[in-house]
């Protein structure tokens, strides 16, 4: 049996966990001291050796990304942290930064030192003001302690960090759209190549990494690549945050080695809502093809999930029980992609709009059998033809949903409408209704 491995989450409940004092009392910033005494090239090698792969969804090897930067030419190179967590179902980076922002700050300093960057940016989505407060304060504390600025920890290394708040746009999680947004433009993806490693922020060599990836760096530097590889599988090494949401008894963050299964996680989370059964789930957010109870034993690592027909993505495990209409769920996701499509490329802009129209027609009972073919055809014309991964993501739940739940789609057609009662899916009258709600009269 796989068990949990609290590492990043280990001190999330400490008193004033977000403060530098608490972070240091729990061993924080010792890896930075080690790093500053290490040759930057050796740090890159260490991250490569650890096998750490990007925790933001794509799973690209982090050390390799660092290694792609061209040789120094005397000009600036940048580290940009992607803290734009917006993929539906994904809810790991925001609680990490709220509880222990210094994990990210320490990772930023080590990474910047490793790649020769003197100005790093943290691009946080704008819709989480308290997380922004915590990050701003953490960075200020690091300056005050001499861990940022002109002489990081007395090493002579110089680094400034700017925490930048976005303003509401899912597409800015795409790394080149993020860079355009950070440059004060509409957040639209860039044509690649050139990749950010060659021409990124301000057309200079840039590394863009996810929050969890960067927060994992101090752990690897502090405890070694071999320690990291003790967890996970051969090609999906290490640990990660698995975020369970939806119809489970105890939704939340479960930090575990990659390769754990949903069956194991569900057992830890107390199982599916009482009186119901698992119907479908996303392994890595709404851009990943749907899984069902058939996939309970798929190891949640990059290779196994891909082999089973989906993607590990952000380990955003959204769990839906048998009360949920799959057509309703998919239609709502499609509306999301239509809303968030940046409009730059035709397949995504036009395609997501048509997908929504057809899906709404089906959901309301006005659809015909041909509409299912139309959906698949439109998906086929988006997948692989869009400018960035947003378009591909929009098709994932639709094609996988029709494949696995065709009969349920058909049950909606020709005037039938939705056979499900939305009230049966809500949490009201079941659990947690009376507690935890915002309290009035602070």
């Amino acid at each position, binding site marked *: 049996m796989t068990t949990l491995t609290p590492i990043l989450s280990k001190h999330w409940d400490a008193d004033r966990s977000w403060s530098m004092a608490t972070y240091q009392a729990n061993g924080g910033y010792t890896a930075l001291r080690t790093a500053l005494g290490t040759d930057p090239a050796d740090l890159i090698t260490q991250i490569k050796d650890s096998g750490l792969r990007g925790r933001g969804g794509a799973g690209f090897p982090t050390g390799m990304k660092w290694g792609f930067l061209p040789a120094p030419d005397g000009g600036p190179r940048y580290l940009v942290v992607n803290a734009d967590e917006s993929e539906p179902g994904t809810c790991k980076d925001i609680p990490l930064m709220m509880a222990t922002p210094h994990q990210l700050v320490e990772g930023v300093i080590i990474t910047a030192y490793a790649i020769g960057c003197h100005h790093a940016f943290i691009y946080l989505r704008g*819709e989480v003001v308290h997380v922004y407060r915590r990050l701003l304060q953490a960075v200020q504390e690091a300056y005050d302690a001499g861990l940022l600025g002109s002489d990081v920890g007395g090493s002579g290394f110089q680094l400034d960090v700017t925490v930048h708040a976005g*303003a509401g746009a899912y597409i800015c999680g795409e790394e080149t759209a993020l860079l355009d947004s950070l440059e004060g433009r509409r957040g639209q993806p860039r044509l690649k190549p050139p990749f950010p490693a060659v021409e990124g922020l301000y057309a200079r060599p840039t590394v863009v990494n996810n929050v969890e990836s960067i927060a994992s760096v101090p752990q690897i530097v502090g405890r070694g690549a071999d320690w990291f590889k003790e967890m996970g599988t051969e090609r999906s090494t290490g640990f990660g945050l698995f975020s369970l949401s939806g119809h489970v008894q105890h939704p939340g963050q479960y930090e575990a080695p990659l390769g754990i299964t949903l069956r194991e996680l569900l057992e830890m989370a107390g199982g599916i809502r009482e009186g119901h059964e698992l119907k479908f789930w996303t392994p890595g957010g709404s851009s990943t093809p749907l899984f069902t109870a058939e996939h309970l034993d798929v190891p949640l690592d990059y290779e196994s999930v891909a082999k089973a027909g989906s993607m590990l993505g952000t380990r955003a495990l959204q769990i839906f029980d048998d009360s949920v209409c799959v057509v309703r769920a998919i239609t709502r996701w499609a509306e999301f992609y239509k809303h968030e499509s940046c409009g730059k490329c035709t397949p995504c802009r036009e395609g997501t709009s048509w997908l929504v129209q057809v899906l709404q027609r089906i959901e309301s009972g006005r659809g015909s059998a041909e509409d299912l073919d139309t959906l698949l055809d439109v998906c086929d014309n988006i997948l692989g033809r869009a400018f960035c991964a947003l378009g591909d993501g929009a098709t994932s739940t639709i094609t996988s949903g029709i494949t696995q739940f065709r009969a349920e789609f058909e049950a909606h057609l020709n005037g039938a409408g939705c056979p499900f009662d939305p009230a049966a899916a*809500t949490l009201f009258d079941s659990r947690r209704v009376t507690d935890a709600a915002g309290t009035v009269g602070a």
Partner: protein
Amino acid sequence: MAGYDAETLARLTEDAAAVVARYPEDPRSALLPLLHLVQSVDGYVSPAGIAFCAGTLDLSTAEVSAVATFYTQYKRHPNGTYTVGVCTNTLCAVMGGDAIWSELSEHLGIGHDETTEDGAITLERVECNAACDYAPVVMVNWEFFDNQTPDSAIATVDALRSGQPVRPTRGADQVVSFRETSRVLAGFPDGRADQGPGAGDATLVGLRLARREGWVAPGETPPATRRARGGKREES
């Protein structure tokens, strides 16, 4: 500059200089925070604010407008004191977000991106706000209200409208106004970072389970072993 009195303009200019200074490589990077700053003064992205940003960054007003209209947090008309955003993305919607939305909308008598007549509440449908383990989620001025019901959401907006202080589940001690929130988003701390919890229950559920079970990362000593060795019970 047209649209601002001398005092406001002086203050804006000083703040804008502080924002621009964060981006020594290219002042244009200051545009998003400057638009938040404009909202902190005007309560939306006003024509005067667009002109101010354009003048500050040597852009045309068309270039600034093009950026401002791309992002959902920038408001094209005066916003209420509180933006109440109900997550109606799939997971929250299914778990109760749709019901919360329709009851709130009916209770307030307004729809998406509309504001109550008293200017207190602007209601919005919002997309996933990265708190799915606390579904259904409502955001008030971008502070988290976790595990909501129609009743709790209605109680919140009623309290906001009557001027009572309202506390988010994970955030500052009290929700501040849209303009104050916008000023923080422009990068000006308001001294509230130490308020509120570090984490909510769902955030800690895996950690607490691991502690109960004695599960630790490789190379760490499980609490059970420590207990055996030290002969006394340790919770963590």
